[in-house]
Every structure is written in C-alpha cells, then in structure tokens.
C-alpha cells in the first residue's frame, strides 16, 4: 500500500543532522513505493532542501520564520501541523533526538494518533509495518505495529542506514508560510557544554569512564582518545554519582542508551544498569584492572590492566595509525 510519508529534517548549527537522512530511509520503507515529503523548519533553512532530495526525499516543504530560529514545542508543532494539514500524510517519521522526543508526543496527541518511539528497525511483514524498539533500556525488545490512524514513529539515531546520496536527484523545494504565534516557552540562554565533543547519541565511537577514572582529571586520557578517534566521552552512573563528570554523560538505564560502532569501557565494572545502556553497541572493548569485572562478559575484546596505562598507549597507537594512513 503506497503511502505519503512526512519526514522531519533536523538542523543543527546550519547543517542537517545525520538522523534526517536515516529518517528519509525509514520514510521510504513506510511509504511502500509512495512519496516521501521532507519538512525543514527554522529561520533560514531552505538551502538544505536539496540535500534532503539527494538522500531520497521526493519533495521538501520548508517553513521559515524568525520565531523558529530556536526549537520550541509550540513553534515547531504549529509548523509541523500546518504541513501535515497541507500534505495529509499517512506516515510520519522524526528522529528520536532531544527535539524529536519533545515534539513528537505533542504532535501525536494533537492528531489523536499512536506513536512508536525510539524504533531501531522497521520492516514490512504480513501486511503490517512492524517496528522494533528496545524496552527496559535494551534488556529486551518489542515488535510493535500501529493499529489505526497515521503510522507515526521516531527512530533512534545510528540504527537505520541512510540511502546513498545521489547528487543527480532533483525534486521540488517549496515553502509554506505559517503564522507562528503564542510561544509559551522562551529560550533565554543556551549553555553549550557538549559542543566541544561529538554528541553521545550520534557518536560512532564512545570512550566511557567509570569509578576507575578516580577523579574529574581522570577523564583527560579518555578525552584524548576520543579526540583521536573522533568519538564522544561517556560515563557510568558510578562516575557521575562520584562527581567526576556531569550527569549529561551518563550511559545506562538511567541516563542515555547508546549504540555506537565502538564502545570502549574504561574502569567500568559493568553493573546491570550500565549494561542496559550500552550492550547493544556493535563492538565493545573493556579495560579494567579487575579480571572478574562483569564488563568482560559483554565485551568483544578485553584488556586486564590499569586504564591510566592502557588508554594513553591506545591513543598513541591510533595516532600512529592515522599518520600512516593519511
């Protein structure tokens, strides 16, 4: 059954986040041969429309307004709902990002529809679109379908492969004028804490520290390794509770759930609550002094040793590799 599917492109610092392209790929699956309409919202974002087309969108609708320069649930929901009203999609896909998580329930509630959040996979099976999503922070999975109304889902970054970019693809980029009004939340200030590094939820490589890092400064060797690998730094609850780092870095059942290509756990014992947040990473490396540490049970590769010795050695080794391959 061919469907028209609306896909939200997400812009950060003037460029499209990767999850936008992943959403297009998911939208294609949901469309079953129908049309994928991308939506771009912001102050000045129309120039990015072409890239959405190149990644597989059939057309793009842009809503631009000074009041949309920053995300607010009121402003963005007015914009999205106006596009929905114009396009009447039968499917909607957002990224399961801070923005998508905040916006999608409001839009679903307005439309009085269901919403499948945080899908990591989707497929057509037995006449249904079946979404796979982790529950209990990845300790289990469920397959879920929409039983009535619009098929609305958010997809977890880094899980659905984007389509190959095709620079010869063309499509219409149109703009829709929406009267954005009555914003009830006003952003006064944005404090960039994560800007120095790569965002945890989208990182392909994560170097995480636990109680074994021993202090705030103990994270420095981890940061250096992350820099060399273009990755992000994360932490276990133990490290956060001990005040070695900010809670925004916490990975686990409370905290973020991540699925990078490579997860290097340094001085992390591997409590169940932490494993829930990272055990679905593609490749896990554990570095721990204690050979009995539970983390070795989920690791693909382990080194029994002091992280303060091993991590700098790893950094050097990867640096050499970079030099020789460039």
């Amino acid at each position: 059954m061919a469907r028209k599917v609306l896909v939200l492109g997400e812009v950060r610092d003037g460029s499209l986040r990767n999850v936008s392209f992943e959403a297009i790929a998911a939208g294609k699956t949901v469309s079953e041969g129908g049309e994928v309409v991308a939506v771009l919202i912001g102050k000045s974002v129309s120039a990015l429309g072409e890239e959405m087309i190149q990644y597989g969108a059939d057309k793009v609708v842009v809503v631009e307004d000074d009041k949309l320069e920053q995300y607010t649930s009121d402003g963005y929901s007015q914009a999205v709902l106006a596009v929905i009203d114009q396009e009447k999609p039968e499917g909607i896909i957002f990224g399961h990002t801070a923005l998508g998580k905040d916006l999608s329930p409001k839009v679903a509630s307005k439309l009085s529809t269901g919403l499948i959040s945080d899908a990591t996979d989707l497929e057509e099976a037995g006449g249904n679109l079946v979404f796979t999503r982790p529950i209990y922070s990845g300790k289990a999975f469920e397959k879920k379908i929409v039983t009535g109304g619009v098929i609305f889902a958010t997809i977890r970054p880094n899980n659905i492969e984007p389509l190959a970019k095709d620079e010869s693809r063309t499509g219409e980029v149109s703009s829709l004028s929406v009267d954005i009004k009555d914003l009830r939340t006003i952003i006064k200030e944005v404090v960039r804490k994560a800007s120095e590094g790569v965002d945890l939820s989208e990182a392909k490589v994560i170097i995480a520290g636990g109680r074994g890092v021993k202090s705030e400064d103990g994270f420095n060797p981890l940061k250096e390794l992350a820099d060399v690998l273009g990755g992000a730094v994360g932490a276990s609850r133990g490290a956060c509770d001990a005040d070695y780092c900010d809670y925004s870095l916490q990975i686990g059942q409370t905290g973020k759930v991540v699925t990078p290509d490579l997860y290097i756990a340094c001085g992390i014992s591997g409590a169940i609550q932490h494993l829930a947040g990272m055990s679905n990473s593609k490749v896990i490396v554990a570095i721990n002094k204690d050979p009995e540490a539970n983390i070795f049970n989920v690791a693909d590769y382990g080194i029994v040793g002091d992280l303060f010795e091993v991590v700098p050695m790893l950094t050097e080794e990867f640096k050499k590799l970079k030099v020789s391959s460039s």
Partner: protein
Amino acid sequence: MNIYVLLKRTFDTEEKISIQNGQIAEDGAEFIINPYDEYAVEEAIQVRDAHGGEVTVVTVGGEESEKQLRTALAMGADKAVLINTEDDLDHGDQFTTAKILAHYLKEQEVDLILAGNVAIDGGSGQVGPRVAEQLDIPYVTTITKLEIDGGTVTVTRDVEGDSEVIETSLPLLVTAQQGLNEPRYPSLPGIMKAKKKPLDEVELDDIDLDEDEVEAKTKTIEIYLPPKKEAGKVLEGELDAQVSELVSLLRNEAKVI
C-alpha cells in the same frame, strides 16, 4: 500551589529481564518508583515546602501500584490517587495513559505537574507532553533546574548535554531529568504518617471515561530478549603487545576503525 506528580511503577533497574509466555516475567521481581518520577516527587515536595500548597501523586495502573504511591507519600507527598484500570483495560499504550491522566487532571485545579522524562521500562517518554497538550498548558522536558517566582517560571533543560534556560509560566508541566535533585529516602516517621494519608482509588467510570475512548492506537506483537553475547576475547601478553593487538583486531577483525 496545587502540584501533581505523574508516577509509574517500574521494575528495579538491577532486575534481569526474562520472558514467560511471550510477556516479561514479573514473578519475584522488585518494583520501584520509576527513577525519573522519583526526581519529580522530590522536586514537587521542595516546591511545596518553598511556596506552600499540596502535592498529589497520581498513577494509572493496578492495585499493586499502591506500594509505590505509599512510598511517595512517605517521602512527603500529601495525597495519592490510583486510577485503577485493572478491570477495564487489557492493554493500553501511551495514548491510553495520557488520555486517562489528562481526563482526570482536567477536573482538578492544577498549577504545576511534574513527571519523569521517561519510564525505564517502556522508554517512550510520551505521556508527559501528551498530557500537557491535552490540558493545553506549556511543557518543558528533561529539566535539571526549576525556579518559580510568582507567575514566572525559569527552567533549565538538558538538551543532549547542552543546557537551555527557558522562561515560561504557570500552569506548567515539566519532566525531570537526572541531576534535578537528590531524591530523599522516606524516613521512619514519614512511613508511619504515610499510612494515614489519603489514597483515593478511582476507575474509568468514576472519571466518566469509556474503555473505547482510551483504546490503544498501537499494539505489541512480540517481545524477545536480545541474542546473548558470547564472552569475548581477553587479550594476554605484555601490555604494549596487547594494545597493538587490540588496535589490529578493531581494524581488521571487527572493522570498526
């Protein structure tokens, strides 16, 4: 100030998950207040202590959720409401829960609603914003700080590691992120007092809702456990040789670098 907390009973984070007859097995499992909702309860108590008023904790669920409601009362909440759907609903989804909560809250005088930003079991994080939308009040999710000064509310919100400082007003719904506060443990006198605090139980009928109106819009067709990971390779030998081997394995065997 009339403060409401939306609370969910969840599995303890240290519980292992197993499956029985296609469902998550609950036998012998420990249940707790969803950890993010615990931050919401704590914040609600602090707001009440600073500004006066009353804290009511509300949950949608079955009889067994009374235990978690009593815990919230023991922490210091004033009243609890259990919207018992045991007899009426086989299964619900976030649409169901949000509609029930919003329907109940519409009939109350509400200044501030607090909830967890996500439940650690279902993990969808939809109910808070859905309830706010249905009550037509603003909401801010994943907050780490809340300051109320008359009608003006200043909230700090965690956005993937960055912080946003947001100004808004009451009535308002916020969802708690880790770092908002340190939830207190119930004290012994608190536990004693909680036994006498009001815990009302209502059913869908009592709040004029029909089962059909809250019928789920999504359906779970299968629950399964992730494939068990085989124990990996713990490297041996001199440390520098291990490090070189690891880099080579990541590059040539795992192909992630």
